[in-house]
């Protein structure tokens, strides 16, 4: 199962790299397929915080993409703190890397990282720094547009419940201050407001991305005996926790939609098991591939122009979210 998906991703990746290679070398030249000659000998550094499943996949995709393009990708040791990451970035700059892909320990420290990197371009992944710290073709964010995830969730729930004019929603947010948590939550609220749906958030609190915390809080919420029609979580881990809590108290998650984001293995498994009903696939491999492509483009051409998903303002390269439910969940496992 996993192999199929990897193969599919790898195929997509190769195709993507070929497209990039073609654009790099121009239309007339027949490209060998693994990037332009100019990409050879390029050194790209990958710095990351402590890995989890998703971050691991992202890292693997970056390394794989580098191999495909014939570019050296060196992965730094996992950083436990901002200090460690700053030191690591400094070493990478001193070692003469052409570009840095950084999964920041703390996105709010982006400016410190940029100052450390100097002229070396940094592509942030996974955790989005504030827009004021981004700069086109220099400090960019490669990821998925979190508001899309929120929109997908809100839309799914509303449709699933038969497009009612009013709903009671339980909302579990990610860690307070985390940009993804804020954006996904805001997107859900904005979706309903725009569509004129009267939504009461009978519970709306953070569970710190955490399964157990979400389960505990959900149980506490149940004590308030408030009615609720659906549970929207900022990520799959919390959604899985809610499903667990529901099952513990004898609620049927098949009747009350519980939705998450990320399409993690657990999340997908939960959908198959009839727990969660919906998640949004954030392509870790797609983001990794886009990150390495953008890094190569910046290192060779100095511009990210032509990269798929590049926003008009040049700050972001968006890798699209993909909605996942029982009908297509197997494609993501």
């Amino acid at each position: 199962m996993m192999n199929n998906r990897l193969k599919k991703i790898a195929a997509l990746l190769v195709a993507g790299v070929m497209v990039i290679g073609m654009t790099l070398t121009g239309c007339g030249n027949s490209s060998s397929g693994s990037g332009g000659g100019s990409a050879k000998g390029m050194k790209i550094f990958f710095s990351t915080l402590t890995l989890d499943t998703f971050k691991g996949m992202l890292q693997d995709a970056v390394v794989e993409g580098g191999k495909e393009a014939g570019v050296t990708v060196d992965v730094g040791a996992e950083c436990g703190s901002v200090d460690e990451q700053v030191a690591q970035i400094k070493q990478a700059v001193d070692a003469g890397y052409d570009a840095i892909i950084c999964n920041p320990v703390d996105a709010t420290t982006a400016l410190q990282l940029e100052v450390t990197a100097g002229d070396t371009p940094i592509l942030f992944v996974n955790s989005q720094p504030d827009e004021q710290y981004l700069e086109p073709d220099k400090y960019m964010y490669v990821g998925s547009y979190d508001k899309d995830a929120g929109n997908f969730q809100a839309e799914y729930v509303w449709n699933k419940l038969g497009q009612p004019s009013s709903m009671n929603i339980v909302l579990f947010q990610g860690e307070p201050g985390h940009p993804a948590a804020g954006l996904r939550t805001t997107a859900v609220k904005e979706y309903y407001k725009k569509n004129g749906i009267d939504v009461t958030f009978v519970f709306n609190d953070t569970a710190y991305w955490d399964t157990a915390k979400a389960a505990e809080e959900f149980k506490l919420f149940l004590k308030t005996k408030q009615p609720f029609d659906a549970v929207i979580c900022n990520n799959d881990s919390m959604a899985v926790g809610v499903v667990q809590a529901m099952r513990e108290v004898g609620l049927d998650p098949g009747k009350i939609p519980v939705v998450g984001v990320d399409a993690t293995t657990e999340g997908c498994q939960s959908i198959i098991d009839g727990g969660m009903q919906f998640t949004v696939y954030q392509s870790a491999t797609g983001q990794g591939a886009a990150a390495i492509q953008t890094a190569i483009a910046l290192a060779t051409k100095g511009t990210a122009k032509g990269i798929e998903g590049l926003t008009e303002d040049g700050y972001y390269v968006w890798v699209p979210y993909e909605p996942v439910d029982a009908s297509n969940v197997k494609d993501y496992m």
Partner: protein
Amino acid sequence: MAKTEKSPKGTKTKKIKDKLLLFIVPAVVVTIIILVAISSFLSKSRLEEMARNELESSITNQADNIYAWLEQNLENFSTIKASLEGMDLDETYYEEVLTTFVGSNSNAPNGVYIATQSGKVYTGRGTDLSITNPTDQQWYKEGLSRINMAYGEPYKNDEGEYVISASGILNDGSDEIKVVAADVTLGKISIIVNSGVKMKNANSFLVDRNDMMVLAHRDSSLVSTTLTGSLGRPVMDGTYNAIISSDYSTTNLGQYTVAFKEIKGTDWLLVSYIENSVILANVTQLITILLIIGVVATILIVILVSAIIGRVIKPLSYITENIHAMSSGDFTIEVKNTSNDEIGVMGQQVGKFVGLMRDMLSSINDESEKLKEESDNSDQVSRVMFDASQSQESAMVNLNQTVDQLAIAVNEIAENATTLAMVVSDTKANSDTASERMAETVEISKSGRADMEKLSVAMGEIQAANQELVASVEKVGQASEEITNIVGMISEIAEETNLLSLNASIEAARAGEAGKGFAVVASEIGGLAKHSAESAQSISDLINQVRDQIEKVVSQADASAKSIEANGELIDAAVTTFDKIFENIESTSDVIKEMIADINKVDEVSTNVAAISEEQAASADEILETSKNMVEQAQAITQSSQDVADNSHQLANTSQTLTGYVQQFKIVKEDTDYDE
């Protein structure tokens, strides 16, 4: 001198300055206008951008402050909540515990209070809270939706005050749901909002995005009103639209620039706005200042440029003075090098030029003087040559005349020689006749002898007659002797004539001076011819005498014949005698023949002489022709030497003129010129 020249130079310098100013001033003015326009435009957009940035920075700062204030209070409340949760208290102790927090937070003087699912309310002592039906309260309902305390919607509390409650479920592990809450007043938030505006002249207000209620506003009458999008207030209506479309980028609404900022952890939106005229006031002020600076700068630049031009072209006027002096031919000037720019270089070069000109002129002067001298010399020489050629010409004319005379003389010689030849020819004819007569004589003598033989009788008479005859024959003998002498003379003459003619031919070969020699030869030849003629005449006379004698002899012989008839013997004797006579006559005839041969020779010679003298005459004609040509040549030479003389004269004049021109340039300093 210097004074009179200064004034035209003064005007010239002024003209350059005016010209430069005419170009520079408009350029400066246009440049400054453009600069002011560009800087105004740029400043305007920069100021507007700066104003926007300042507004955004101000609102961000304010939002952070509000957030920090809210968070600080929330933390305070959360801490209390956490301690309540951690204490695992019995409800009866709540009041005691809550009392300890009353007044601890000035922003929430009532501290924290708790309401239970069953409707019980716990507050600290000393609070002015009076809560009834807590589960119906907004804050209670909001509190049920979260465990971590958060702010809810504003509401009017029992005391008619707008407050915002932070509330959350008290997670104490019991089965009864309790909600912890704490209040902060909107008034307090309004103060923060109104006093926290960092940008001068900017205003702020706070809106709840969920119910569009204004939470804080400088105009307190607007607090707790609801935005509808049709209030007629551009900023408020615009804010409503921004919330609906979730577009919180800074924008222009009516006469205002408006910035939005979401307050983290809440659904509140902070709106900050400033009147565009305030921003533009700065721009207008800036433009005014720029214009004033522009005008002042223009004036300063014009003055400065004017001064700089004056200073820069000062050496130029000195150079102009020098050039002026140069143009009037004064090369005695010394160019001072005062500046190190192009004008200085110009001055240096003019100085060098003056030096060069000075040297050149002095060498031209020297050269022209030399030229003059030399042309004077050549003038003299040509004059001498002219004189010489003139005397040559006259000499040639003389020569020509001489040759002419020579030619005439030679011609005369030729004529004379011809005449001589003719005369000699006639002489020859006469001597031929004489010869014939001689032959007849011989015949007659022969017949006479025969007669004699017949007449042998009267010898006596014949004897006497014979005696007379002998006498006559003796006379003939004498005449023959004389003829012999004459012949000898003619022979001499012939010889001399021959020599003379040779001399004459030699002399004729020599041109010019041979003329006189020729004349002598000619006269000699003439003399000889005369002699020859006379001699011939003498011969003729003698011949006549001989005939007379012979006639006498014949008559005597007739007389004798009678005697002969008488005396045959006598005749015989007479015949014998006659034979002897006959022999003598014959020998005489031979002499005459020889003489005739000699005359023939003379004839030939004189004919040759005539031919030669004709040739001489022709040669003399050629000589004449040649000498005529020579005269012409000499005349041409004279003309040429005249021309040479004229030319060298002209050259002398030209070099004189040149010297005159060169002397117009002053190359030696005259002290008087610079005595002032």
